């Protein structure tokens, strides 16, 4: 049972990661900075619970806010460039954050044990949950509380004016600008929201994994972050969730018998999917098709 709960935690955390990229992708921008925000959230919250003995909730909020703050900061220079240049800029940001934590050493002795980030050795013993007697299912519930809250928030946003604004910028920047939208403000806002969501995910990750090091937050993680919304499509937040369940639940867990060859397969899968469906598995056409199938069913029921 614990195995499935652990898997549920992973799926929840990766959904947050994917949703953080989803928000910015609505404005038509692809960011690989998500790994950096995730790392900032993870290290901030970890340092607060381990070195400062905070409880999890304020530490998590602090991690999310710090990550959001950095997203806001780098949003301005990074969003001056678009498209592929933004990809390069955000890769550079993630790498910078990774190298920063690679070099960060902050050791203190608490209860006769030396704890804290230990540069190349990683950050061990982030044991808030086990130290306070949380059961695995309680932790899982805690993770999913945030996943559902973020999903609901984004779902609601998508139906409000804010969602329309984001999508307008994503569809046609020139048209959006000519109806009076401030492109920079919209994109930086999306980047900030994405940073906060990634920060929550990172904070949860640090405490469920209990061990983080710089190798967790490489370009691979950033690629996962954008792969979920790309595979799941941008029509709704549920696409991202479906993609996470598919990749983490079926591909990665289901193919465990393949051992390390799974990673090879992951690269091949991306290539294959993008060749067959360059706009994602659930692109506009597929989404319409699914909608039609459901509409037909509903219609039939109505007749009967």
């Amino acid at each position: 049972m614990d195995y499935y709960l652990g898997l549920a935690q992973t799926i929840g955390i990766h959904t947050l990661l994917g949703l953080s990229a989803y928000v910015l992708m609505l404005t038509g921008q692809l960011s690989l900075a998500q790994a950096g925000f995730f790392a900032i959230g993870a290290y901030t919250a970890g340092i607060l619970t381990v070195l400062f003995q905070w409880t999890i909730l304020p530490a998590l909020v602090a991690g999310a806010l710090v990550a959001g703050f950095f997203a806001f900061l780098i949003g301005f220079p990074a969003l001056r460039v678009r498209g592929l240049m933004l990809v390069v800029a955000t890769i550079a940001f993630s790498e910078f954050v990774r190298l920063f934590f690679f070099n960060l050493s902050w050791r203190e002795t608490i209860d006769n044990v030396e704890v804290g980030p230990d540069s190349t050795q990683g950050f061990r013993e982030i044991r808030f949950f086990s130290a306070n007697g949380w059961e695995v299912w309680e932790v899982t519930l805690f993770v999913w509380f945030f996943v559902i809250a973020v999903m609901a928030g984004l779902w609601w946003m998508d139906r409000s004016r804010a969602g329309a604004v984001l999508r307008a910028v994503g569809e046609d920047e020139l048209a959006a600008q000519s109806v009076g939208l401030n492109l920079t403000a919209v994109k930086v806002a999306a980047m900030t929201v994405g940073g906060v969501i990634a920060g929550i995910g990172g904070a949860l990750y640090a405490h469920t994994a209990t061990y983080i090091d710089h190798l967790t937050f490489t370009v691979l993680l950033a690629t996962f972050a954008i792969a979920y919304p790309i595979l799941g499509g941008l029509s709704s937040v549920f696409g991202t969730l479906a993609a996470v369940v598919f990749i983490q639940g079926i591909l990665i867990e289901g193919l465990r018998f393949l051992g390390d060859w799974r990673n090879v397969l992951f690269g091949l899968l991306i290539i294959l999917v993008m060749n067959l469906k360059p706009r994602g598995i659930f692109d506009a056409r597929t989404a319409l098709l699914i909608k039609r199938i459901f509409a037909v069913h509903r219609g039939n029921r109505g007749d009967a």
Partner: protein
Amino acid sequence: MEDFWVEFVEITQSVSDGLLFGSTYALIGIGFTLIFGTMRKLNMAYAAASIAGAYAGLAMLAFVDAPAIIVFLASALASGAIGYAVYVVCFRFIPVDNPLAALMTTIGALFFIDEVIIHATNASPMAYPAIFDDVMIDIPPYSVRGDLLFVFLVGLLSMLVLLFVLYRTRLGLATRAVSQQNIAAQLCGIDVHKTNAQTFVVAGVLGGVAGAMTAASVGVLSPLMTLPLTVKGLIVTVIGGLGSIPGAIVAGLMVGAFENVFLYLRGVNERDMYVLLLLFVFLVFRPNGIFGKSIDRD
């Protein structure tokens, strides 16, 4: 005063070593920029293909005992072949107006190549042959490593060959035509797909030279080299200005010198952070790079 003098010599020595090694970054940057120039797309698998080419050259040593120079040549050719494969798999069937899909396929190819290397070598670094690594040219108070000088000269030669291909051959003419206006080029009877594929092979060979030279000057080849080389190549491309070959050359040498100075001043763990900061400085103050032209290019 004495201390200052020693420090000055050390730093200028770092700059010169870095400039020599920077020629490999320049080659990688040129490869990125060439492909961006013709297709308006990024090939994220490029540096990985270069390292894979170096591995392929090394694999040849398992069968025949070849001199280092043959290994370098084999690396370059293998990388050209991998470049062609990457084109077919990651670009050929992706819609022209969808750079982000091509970005994803090449990231997929990057991981694929990386993982194949890791599996083939059990992730352990392998020794790579070098030339002139026992030569040391002393010009007091400086000294120049023979192998680095060789790397630099090979880099220079490759750039000259590339410029010759681009400006003196029909292939180069076609490549430049496609990069300027691909529809007009198509109307003139240029086969765009064929030209793109040839550009990938040329860029691949260049990358193979860079991969071989990187491995030769470090002395080992490891799958851990692909990601840093990718990031460095991208940084060089952006600093030089996307699509600009002279820009890539200047930026490559500059990044090489810059990182080597910080290697001396701050150590190996912090070195790359300063290179990334250099990129941010450029993104803020000169987002189009040294030689970038249009404002809105993406």
